[in-house]
């Protein structure tokens, strides 16, 4: 019980810290929504009009900061997220977020899961066949691929498969000439547009999983209980999965939770390269246009996502691993 309370208070504290940072950083820095709007309308609209437009959407730069801060906290938590004062002026932030969310969740979320499963499978085999052909060249290659600038990989894939070969579309989430709906044409178009960004993420994210899993396997295989299983004459497959891999995967689970949490926020550059209208793309828009309301909500969602998945991982680990249960 003490464990749960501790976890939950940590959760709330982090959330509060993130929201506070996100309130004060933009407001203490040079530049404000009014200037951004003036630049975008190129002086065609008078500043006074712009100011009244902004204030009608809830932007009050001249009111005191502290009450503003408390209203902000209340609004964030209660879901009164207000309206965008950036690119899509006046559109409810909630609409923008819920339009973008499925695309990010679908693309990045699925890719993260696939990378985790595939990476662990390869890592198990590489660690088991220590010194085999797979294991001899794999680590050095993966150390490099795992640290490639992934947005650059995206650009290379566009160069090869879109510009040169013309097999796949270079950007957007679906062909705008097709009416959205559950038609085969639309679903096919969505999948087609997801291939390149998904591979971009897969190429760079799978290496980390393979390497950690391989190293965990190697450490686990040296344990006495694996030796015991060998001595009992168990089948290799049984030792590999039932004895070694099962235990070697435990540390990876919290890593997986962490990466699931970063699904929402870790995709900014991929969405930028592919003009994929997910949450990351919206964040860049919001930052470019000093769209405080949108920025605040996105940042809060990013933090909540990480916190929730960490919390879930903690409880999952406690359920999975008796040692973690005993410690908590």
């Amino acid at each position, binding site marked *: 019980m003490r464990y749960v309370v501790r976890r939950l208070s940590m959760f709330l504290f982090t959330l509060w810290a993130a929201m506070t940072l996100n309130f004060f950083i933009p407001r203490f820095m040079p530049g404000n929504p009014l200037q951004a709007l003036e630049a975008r309308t190129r002086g065609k609209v008078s500043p006074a009009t712009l100011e009244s437009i902004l204030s009608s959407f809830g932007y009050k730069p001249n009111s005191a900061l502290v009450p503003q801060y408390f209203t902000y906290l209340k609004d964030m938590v209660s879901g009164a997220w207000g309206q965008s004062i950036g690119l899509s002026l006046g559109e409810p932030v909630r609409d923008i977020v819920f339009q973008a969310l499925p695309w990010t969740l679908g693309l990045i979320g699925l890719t993260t899961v696939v990378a985790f499963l595939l990476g662990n499978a390869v890592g198990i085999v590489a660690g088991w066949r220590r010194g085999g052909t797979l294991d001899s060249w794999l680590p*050095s290659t993966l150390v490099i691929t795992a640290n490639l600038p992934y947005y*650059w990989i995206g*650009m*290379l894939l566009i160069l090869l498969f879109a510009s040169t070969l013309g097999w796949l579309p270079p950007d957007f989430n679906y062909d705008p000439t097709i009416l959205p709906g559950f038609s085969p044409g639309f679903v096919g178009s969505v999948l087609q547009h997801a291939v390149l960004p998904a591979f971009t993420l897969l190429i760079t994210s799978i290496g980390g999983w393979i390497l950690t899993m391989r190293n965990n396997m190697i450490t686990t295989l040296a344990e006495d209980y694996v030796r015991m299983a060998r001595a009992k004459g168990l089948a290799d497959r049984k030792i590999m999965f039932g004895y070694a891999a099962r235990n070697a995967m435990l540390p990876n689970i919290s890593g997986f939770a962490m990466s699931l949490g970063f699904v929402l926020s*870790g995709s900014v550059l991929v969405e930028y390269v592919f003009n994929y209208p997910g949450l990351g793309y919206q964040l860049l828009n919001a930052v470019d246009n000093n769209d405080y309301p949108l920025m605040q909500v996105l940042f809060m969602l990013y933090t909540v996502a990480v916190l929730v998945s960490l919390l879930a991982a903690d409880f999952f680990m406690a359920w999975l691993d008796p040692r973690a249960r005993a410690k908590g």
Partner: protein
Amino acid sequence: MKFASLVKNRKALVGLILFALTVLLAAFPGLFTSVHNPGEIGTYGPNLGPSTGHLLGTTSYGQDIYSQLVYGARQVLEIALLAGAFATVLAVLIGITAAYMGGIVDEALSLVTNVVLILPTFPLMIILAKYAGQSNEVMIIVLVATGWSYGANQMRAQALSLRNRDFLEAARVRGERRSYIILFEMLPTMTSLIVANFLGSALYSVLAASGLQFIGLGNTDQQSWGTMLYNAHSMEALQAGNALWIIAPGLAIALLSAAFALMNYAFDEIGNPALRPVRRKDLRRSRKAERLAAQAADPHAEKGARDADPDVYADAS
């Protein structure tokens, strides 16, 4: 952990060479190109293909790509080394203080560390870099502010495991000052973790800084690889058929990050021999050892051999 063992490891050697090459480019760009104003617009014709005059062609602004590449090494290297160093110092300070002081200080520092660890780093970096202006100093501060927490956790864990060792107890009994114990007794035993942390932070800084430059948040007064990519992307170099403008700077970033990553991984291997690649010779030897061990009918043969060499394994923990 000696320099000689770094050179013997092939991964480390490749990493060192790549790193040295970047240092050379950053320190003496004049040695590699005769162009002195790589940023000036319209010096040459736009979108020229590669030729002897322009090894990698020119941008659509009419700048020589090769010379931009050469001059671009300095900014990212400066940022990576400085941000890596500061983040490591901060991690050591906070981690060791938390572990050594314990109690309420530890609770507070650990809380701050964990909060920073969980914050969505890249969006936070974007917001900070966007509003704090675009200079190398801001970039370094942003990277340090978001990058120290992982290391601090590691340092704290390592320092905690040291806290009750006899040699520290001995120093305390001798009546040494706290600062002396931390600086001259604890820190030297943590050298390998500190170096690994520096390499990791530098790697993270290369990638994060280039990523920020790529979305146009870098210092544009100076050439940088990320900004080159930003320009190439916003001028639609792909559609203009100017593939080298995209391939070259990205490859440069990839090679520098590979340099740090390889050195870091090799460092891990040297510290933790269990991860080293198995050589055929070693395999034969270990089989022979296993046979001998089996003959001796000692079930702990392998484990015993490991315990006999605590020095090597101390680094792995």
